[in-house]
């Protein structure tokens, strides 16, 4: 008897999947609207992607190819364990290559490689309510969404500018979906906001602890909120990726030693590896390989 026999396909029972699929369909029908759903206990703590895992489990089929990323990387704890989880409970094919995946579950990044029609991006969302820290009452925020009262969202941006001289929100940057609902894009860097706009892929958002699902269907308008005299801007980096030389990608800072040595590398590991495989090299590529060899010698 193998391990699979003890689980239903993709862990959740069929009734639960059905309930979640209904929520997903409703979410797709009303882009940006937070649909409540009966979130289940998952074999992982809240905050580790219970919402994203439930959404993925509900849409996953035997023919799907799954990719899981955490902060852009395929090899971090969260990504590795969720990928292993679905290999075990669904026996599904997995990949680290963005182009090969049909479903990509992500925490805090959108892949650099533009997504294609037929792909689905599943976000893990900690706090789905963009108005939460401005108005703590859920009864009131739901009313504000219903009546499209979004002045408060700009109060937050106003405060940013008055304190820092510019909009200092760098992640979870609020967006307006299809001219109607204001939505939290989950804690992705604002660098990724433009990728959501008119994306060919379906984007699903699952918040397990908060019991909400929302969606951005393919080819949907997603506009980052801003002021006329302080327009929305994405982060820029002074240097290209130190390993693959990519420009106009989101970089992570990696501390190399305790003497102030550091490098900036692609946060999207698949993108970086792919570029290196195609012969691109950054300024520190050789030196890091050299350093890695040293202990073995």
């Amino acid at each position, binding site marked *: 008897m193998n391990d699979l026999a003890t689980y239903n396909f993709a862990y959740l029972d069929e009734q639960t999947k059905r309930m979640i699929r209904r929520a997903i369909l409703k979410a797709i029908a009303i882009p940006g609207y937070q649909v409540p759903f009966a979130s289940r206990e998952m074999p992982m703590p809240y905050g580790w992607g219970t919402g994203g895992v439930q959404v993925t489990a509900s849409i996953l089929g035997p023919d799907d190819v799954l990719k899981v990323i955490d902060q852009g990387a395929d090899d971090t704890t969260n990504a590795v364990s969720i990928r292993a989880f679905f290999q075990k409970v669904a026996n599904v094919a997995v990949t680290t290559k963005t182009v090969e995946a049909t479903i990509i579950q992500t925490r805090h990044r959108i892949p650099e490689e533009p997504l294609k029609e037929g792909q689905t991006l599943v976000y893990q969302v900690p706090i789905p309510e963009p108005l939460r820290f401005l108005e703590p009452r859920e009864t009131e925020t739901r009313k504000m969404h219903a009546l*499209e009262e979004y*002045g*408060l969202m700009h*109060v937050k941006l106003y*405060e940013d500018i*008055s*304190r820092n001289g510019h909009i200092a929100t760098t992640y979870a940057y609020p967006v307006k979906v299809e001219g109607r609902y204001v939505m939290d894009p989950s804690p992705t860097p604002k660098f990724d906001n433009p990728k959501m706009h008119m994306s060919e892929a379906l984007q699903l958002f699952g918040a397990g602890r908060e019991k909400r699902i929302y969606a951005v269907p393919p080819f949907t308008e997603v506009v980052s909120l801003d002021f006329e005299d302080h327009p929305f801007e994405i982060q820029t980096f002074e240097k290209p990726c130190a390993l693959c030389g990519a420009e106009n990608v989101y970089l992570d800072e990696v501390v190399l030693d305790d003497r102030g040595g550091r490098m900036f590398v692609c946060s999207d590991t698949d993108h970086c590896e792919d570029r290196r495989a195609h012969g691109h090299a950054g300024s520190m590529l050789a030196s890091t390989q050299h350093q890695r060899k040293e202990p073995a010698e």
Partner: protein
Amino acid sequence: MSAVPLLKVRDVSKFYGSRIGCRNVSFELYPGEVLAVVGESGSGKTTLLSCLSTRLMPSSGMIEYHMRDGQYRDLAHMGEAARRFLMRTDWGFVHQNPADGLRMTVSAGANVGERLMAVGDRHYGNIRASASDWLRRVEIGEDRIDDQPRAFSGGMRQRLQIARNLVTSPRLVFMDEPTGGLDVSVQARLLDLVRGLVHDLGLAAIIVTHDLAVARLLSHRMMVMKDGAVIEQGLTDRVLDDPREPYTQLLVSSILQV
């Protein structure tokens, strides 16, 4: 004053179960007119104000408001979205406790600017300029624009609340004991300020107060309430100088003479 009333109130009653909040209140309010509602605690003043400002649904009666498009609309039959829009554009509500009417954790500038942003203003420079202008008009130093109201004194908070309400140039402002809890010298300056603003902007206002001195200073007309009903109304000076009802006489004679 215009010949068309801004607000028409007919037989408004509010019952809390078998208890009476207010009973058969009728009046009309004209543009630019300040009406004071006075009476002791529990006389139904605040209930009436809540009914008028759509915070409470009256049990019976009708309240009609003269919209900017010239039509009278029954407030009870307006949708919630339209009512809330009215609340933050054409109306203002000054609470007794400024903490109820302000956002204590965002700066003074954002407090004043919130209504502008709510009606679609998306230019930071313009919003900040109006906020700064309004702070000056309510005598708050422009260097305090980035401070939170938590750092303000009671009188400053109340002035900030007034600025926040007036920034969208409302036509009707409700005030619930606007000077309650302030010491007399601060009260005097606040009253001076409110009187100036009401006069300059041509605001209509309904002020609920138990302080007859406030009513005399600010209002043109006055209603005296007791046990939920209006027992006497008329020009403020007439009511205070020549009270007809025994209860009003008692009220007027209870004013402390210093």
